[in-house]
């Protein structure tokens, strides 16, 4: 390939940092206040010249958002003139430990209690009370559990810890 193959205005080869930055703007389809990078779903970005490979990992084996996420990634990169090959990896398995601290705060502000490693009652994301109760380990999406606050009586979801 020579310079003549790229007439004026040809886009520069994408950089890994540039692709990461574009992916920061792809929201999780179920919880749009956090991005797929915040959640740790994007595992790797590799650039070799114009060829870009993005490696993603599913949060749960059957997460119905997996395909939607792949499509959003493809669309976001295409909008910026990048055709990426997508790869899926299962190993190491996704863990809530990969969620960024700033994203945890945004989850809380959104009314979803962030994942907690420590044992003991979960603080209510609305009133901070520790008088809360686990209702079910299963919620509206595979990643959430149902809780109830006994102080403000508000039911709330928790991003369950895996």
């Amino acid at each position, binding site marked *: 390939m020579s310079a003549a193959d790229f007439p004026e205005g040809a886009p520069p080869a994408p950089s890994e940092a540039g692709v990461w930055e574009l992916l920061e703007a792809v929201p999780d389809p179920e919880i749009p206040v956090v991005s797929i990078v915040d959640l740790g779903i994007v595992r790797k970005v590799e650039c070799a010249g114009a060829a870009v490979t993005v490696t993603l990992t599913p949060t*749960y084996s*059957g997460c119905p958002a997996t395909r939607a996420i792949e499509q959003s990634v493809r669309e976001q990169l295409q909008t910026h003139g990048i055709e990426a090959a997508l790869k899926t990896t299962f*190993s190491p398995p996704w863990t809530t430990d990969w969620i960024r601290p700033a994203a945890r705060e945004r989850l809380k502000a959104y009314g979803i209690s962030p994942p907690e490693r420590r044992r003991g009652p979960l603080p209510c994301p609305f009133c901070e009370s520790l008088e809360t109760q686990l209702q*079910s380990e*299963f919620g509206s999406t595979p990643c959430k559990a*149902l809780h109830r606050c006994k102080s403000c009586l508000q039911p709330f979801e928790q991003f369950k810890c895996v």
Partner: protein
Amino acid sequence: MELSDTQRPALFSYLLRHADDRLILGHRLSEWCGHAPILEEDLALANIALDLIGQASNLYQLAAAVEGAGRSEDDLAFLRNPDEFRNLQLVEQPNGDFAMTLMRQFLFDAYDVRFLEQLQQSSHPELAGIAGKAFKEAQYHLRHSQQWILRLGDGTPESHERAQQALEELWRFAHELCEADELDRELAAAGLVPDLAALADSWRQQVTEVLAAATLALPHDPYQASGSRQGRHTEHLGYLLAEMQVLPRSYPGAQW
């Protein structure tokens, strides 16, 4: 990973067994959607179904790649007949009442946690990865079914009786969970899969302890179902597949 000419078909058959378990059990659980006794359980059973069907999908994709015959995961799920399915007879048993569904789930989950924990050590990196992910899910599945067995068995006279009845009905299908055959032994010797028979004692110990705590009595039924892994099934599988496969069979290649 490089597989020998004999390992390739063996691993394919093995993957089908375990993908089929998950697809069939996941389909059964999905039949509860909109019918469960309480909202929380409707969500729980649908979530568990989703995990199991997701695990099946991952295993079918790997199986299709290992087979290398151009079949897709959908072909494997929707275009095989009952005698080509290799799932355990336990998982194809009808839902019955809530106790029956949860008893079936508990017997399976107690095995599945052990099986997946070991399968993570597979020398096949992709299989180990799929297992690692599924292992995390199996642990909360087991917490859920175990809690229900305790609650139903040690609950009201009605729930106790139904849980005992479910156990009597399903016990004959439970022995197969940890029953190893030639295929298991061959692949285990190569480090690709766990030694299934080695899981039996700890499975039995946990099951016995939980059932005792739930005030349920182990059945005396001496009959032990066998042959699922060779394609022997109860009549229930055919009906299940007829419903599950009708659309892709009636409209081959349909898209939406």
